C-alpha cells in the first residue's frame, strides 16, 4: 500500500488522498492517514514542481562538480558532505563510487557565478583535493519528466 501511494505521489505530487484512493480502490481516509504517517516519518520529504526553466527568461545554469576530498579519520566523508550541502548554491550532494568522491550539483544565475562559487568556496575547503566542473548544457529529462517530449499519439484511426 505505502509503496503504491509513494509511486503515485512521485509521479504526481498534486494528487489528493482521494485521487489516490480512487486509483488504488482504497479508502480515502486510510490513504490520507498513511500519507501523514509517511510525512511524519520523513519518508516523504517534500512536494515540488518540475519546472522547465528554459521556457522562461530567468534561465539559471547548473553544473555537476566532481570533488575529490580527503576523508577525515572517524568522520569519513560526513563532515565535508555536511559542509558542502549547507551552501544555498548547492542543489544536491552525493557520495560516489569510482574515481571521485562527492558529486555536487551547483546552480547559479550565470556560468561565471557558478565558476566563481567553485573557485572561491568549494576549492578552498581544506579537505578538497581537486574539483572538475561540468556545466549542464541542456535538460532533456528531469525527475522522470521528459522536457522535450515530442511523443504524439500515433495510433491509427483503429477504433474497434
Amino acid at each position, binding site marked *: 500500500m505505502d509503496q503504491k501511494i509513494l509511486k*503515485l505521489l512521485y509521479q504526481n505530487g498534486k494528487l489528493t488522498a482521494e485521487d489516490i484512493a*480512487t*486509483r*488504488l*480502490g482504497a479508502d480515502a481516509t486510510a490513504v490520507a492517514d498513511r500519507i501523514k504517517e509517511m510525512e511524519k516519518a520523513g519518508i516523504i520529504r517534500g512536494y515540488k514542481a518540475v519546472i522547465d526553466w528554459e521556457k522562461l527568461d530567468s534561465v539559471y545554469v547548473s553544473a555537476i562538480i566532481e570533488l575529490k576530498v580527503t576523508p577525515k579519520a572517524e568522520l569519513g566523508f560526513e563532515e565535508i558532505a555536511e559542509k558542502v550541502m549547507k551552501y544555498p548554491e548547492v542543489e544536491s550532494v552525493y557520495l560516489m563510487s569510482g574515481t571521485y568522491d562527492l558529486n555536487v550539483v551547483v546552480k547559479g544565475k550565470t556560468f561565471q557565478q557558478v565558476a566563481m562559487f567553485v573557485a572561491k568556496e568549494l576549492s578552498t575547503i581544506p579537505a578538497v583535493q581537486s574539483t572538475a566542473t561540468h556545466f549542464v548544457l541542456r535538460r532533456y529529462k528531469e525527475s522522470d519528466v521528459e522536457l522535450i517530449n515530442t511523443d504524439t*499519439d500515433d*495510433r491509427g*484511426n*483503429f*477504433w*474497434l
Partner: protein
Amino acid sequence: MDYEKLLSPVVREMKPSGIRKFFDIAAQMENVISLGVGEPDFPTPWQVRSAGIHSLEKGKTKYSSNAGMLPLREEIARYMKRKYDLSYCGETEVLVTVGGSEAIDLCLRAVLSFGDEVIIPQPSYVCYEPMTTLAGGVPVIIETKAEDDFKLTPQQLTAAITDKTKALILPYPCNPTGGIMERADLEAIAQVLKDKNILVISDEIYSELTFGKRHVSIASIDGMRERTVVVNGFSKNFSMTGWRLGFACGPKEILSQITKIHQFAIMCAPTTSQYAAIEALRNCDDAVAAMIEEYDMRRRLMVDGFNRIGLTCREPSGAFYAFPCIASTGLTSEEFCERLLYAKEVAVVPGTAFGKGGEGYIRASYCYSTEHIQEAIRRMGEFVTELTCK
C-alpha cells in the same frame, strides 16, 4: 466494367461499420479528445523490440515454417501450461497466425459449410459476424445482459443450439463489455456442450488483462480441450498490436486442417515478429504486470468518473474498456456519441457498434493517460449536466 456483377453479393452486402462516417468526422476535428482507440498506449516492452531488432541485424528475414518457428510454438505451449494449465504439443497443436483474428477466420472456414450456424454472444468484437458470413455460415446472435455481467448463460446457449450449430465463439475477457467468464460460469457452459459436436472458438486475446481474478480458459474445463480452439495473441497482452501476431492452440485434428488454409492464404506470420514474441513469452512477466497495474488504476478512475457524472458503470473485470449505460440521458447510443462529439469534442464508441444488444451503452477505452481520461470525463460530465438541465 460492371462491378456490381463482378463482385460477390456476400461481400457487397457486407456492411462497412455503420459508424465509419462518425469516426472520420472525429478524426478530422482538431481538439477532439478520444476514448475510442482499442489498442494499448504503452510501447512494446523494450526487450521485445530489441529481440526484433537483433533478429534483423542477424539477417533473419526469411519465411519461417508455415505453422511458425518451432521454438516459438514450443514457447507458446510452455506459456499456455504455465499461465492457464493447458497442455499442447508445440509441434502439432500450435499455429502462429497474423493476429488473433486470422485464427478465428481459419477456424470458421475449417468447420463451416453453407448454412451452418455459429453462435455469437454480443455485444462483442465486430469481426465474428462478417467472418461467419464470408465462410458461408449463419450468425446466431445471443444478447448477453448487463444483469448477468454480460456473461453467456447456459440457458441462453441451450436455447440457441440447433442441429445446424457448428461453432460457438466465446469472446472473454470481452471487448467492449469488460465481462469475463469465471470457472463456475465456464463449467455450466461445458455441461451444455459436453455431448454435442460443436467447436468452441475461444477468443482469449485479453487473457492477461483481468483485474483481481485470474483468467480461466474453457479448454481447461473437464472434457472441453478436445472441442476447443483457444485463440490468443500478442497484441493486447504484450502491447504488440502492430507486430500482427496471434496463435491458435487446439486438438491436432483441427490444427492440421486450419494450418493448410493458413499455408495457402498467408504462408507464415512475420518472422521478425516471431523472434520478438519468443522474448515476450520468456521474459516479460514484470513488464506485463506493470502495464496491468497501470490499467487497473485507470479502470478505477474511469468507472468512478462515469458513476460520478451520472452514467451508471459496472466494474469491468477484464480487457481495457468501460461500458457505461447512457440510457438515463434518453438518447440512443449513436445520438449520445454524435452529440457528445459535436458539443464537447469527446469521441467514444456507441455500444451498437458491437451488436444491437449494445444499445443504451457506450464503450470508453482506458488506453490513455490518467490526465487524458480525467479531461474526457470532465467534458462528458458537462455534457450530461447540460442534457439533463434542458
